[in-house]
């Protein structure tokens, strides 16, 4: 029941996001605005508990949701036949570059925080509330 209420909340926030995106002519997609609004609303327990249950279900099977779009590859087979090897090269190289740069940069940036974990975290000890 919690998960169902949570799905309802997610849909409400997605709808709010879509409405705001249209009304304010911002470039953010509706679900993204919905996510930001929900982030604020999660302060309320009435929203947090059901949304948590729904999010565990949805995000636990996140990869399933990409299957319908992925199968759409068959509608672009002509394009893949024409540019296939070049497209594969582009996709593989850029993905590896993105992975390597992000991981190495983050490793370097976070190394600085390790020597002083106790002092640097003082404003964050509000996890309990």
């Amino acid at each position, binding site marked *: 029941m919690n998960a169902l209420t949570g799905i309802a909340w997610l849909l409400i926030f997605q709808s709010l996001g879509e409405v705001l995106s249209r009304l304010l002519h911002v470039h953010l997609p509706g679900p993204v605005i919905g996510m930001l609004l929900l*982030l604020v609303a999660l302060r309320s327990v009435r929203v947090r508990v059901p949304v948590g249950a729904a999010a565990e279900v949805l*995000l636990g099977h996140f990869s399933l949701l990409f*299957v319908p779009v*992925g*199968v759409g590859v068959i*509608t672009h087979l002509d394009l893949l036949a024409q540019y296939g090897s070049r*497209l594969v090269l582009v996709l593989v190289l*850029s993905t590896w*570059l993105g992975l390597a740069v992000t991981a190495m940069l*983050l490793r370097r940036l976070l190394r600085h925080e390790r020597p002083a974990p106790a002092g640097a975290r003082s404003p964050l000890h509000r996890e309990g509330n």
Partner: protein
Amino acid sequence: MQDFVQLWVYLSATPLFGLTATLVTYVVAQAFYQRVGQAPWANPVLWTVVTLSVLLMVSRTPYPTYFSGAQFIHFLLGPAVVALAWPLWQRRAQLAGRLGPLLIAALVGGATAGGSAVAIGWSLGLPVNLLRSLAPKSVTAPVAMGIAEALGGVPALAAVFAVLTGLIGAISAKYLFDALGPFTPCERGFALGVSAHGIGAARAMQVHPDSGAYAALALGMQVVLSSVLIPLLARLF
């Protein structure tokens, strides 16, 4: 035989077919993936997409017919993006303490993934409409479609590139990280979320709870950053 053909024609034209085929194939692929110890090459999305594509081509079922059923799964992408607020909320304390480094890593990493795709594609002589659809390839599919549309690319194509990117990341990241490592689970997960979005994040969630949380975090940040920045950048050119 005639009856069977008629029955098949009827069934394959109803939404029931696309939905059932997608779920059943995924459940089987997922079970296989667990059986081989979550080996990267056994990625359930990869094998579900391959199996369904072959099935559609062999049975000559048009994609729109399939999608009339699969759209019920596809629709859930929207609520799932909204639901990303949940992992962000759960790690808000960590996120606040590391906001600077994480933002920089997401920005630079995302720019590297998208920028290098356009640059390499351009140097290989790919046409402009393909390049415009390649730019948001490291953003999760539903958002990538919106960005590609704003850029004048082909939304459906952008979504396919995004899915392929996610698959490449999910399958190869382990070997790349092992070669360049050592990396903590947080760093691995965050990089997967930035560069290989939803499918990469899904892989990270299965491998380690920390890397899963950071992947979801990266995914959420990436979605916001790229929705704002890519159209702005594109307007400059």
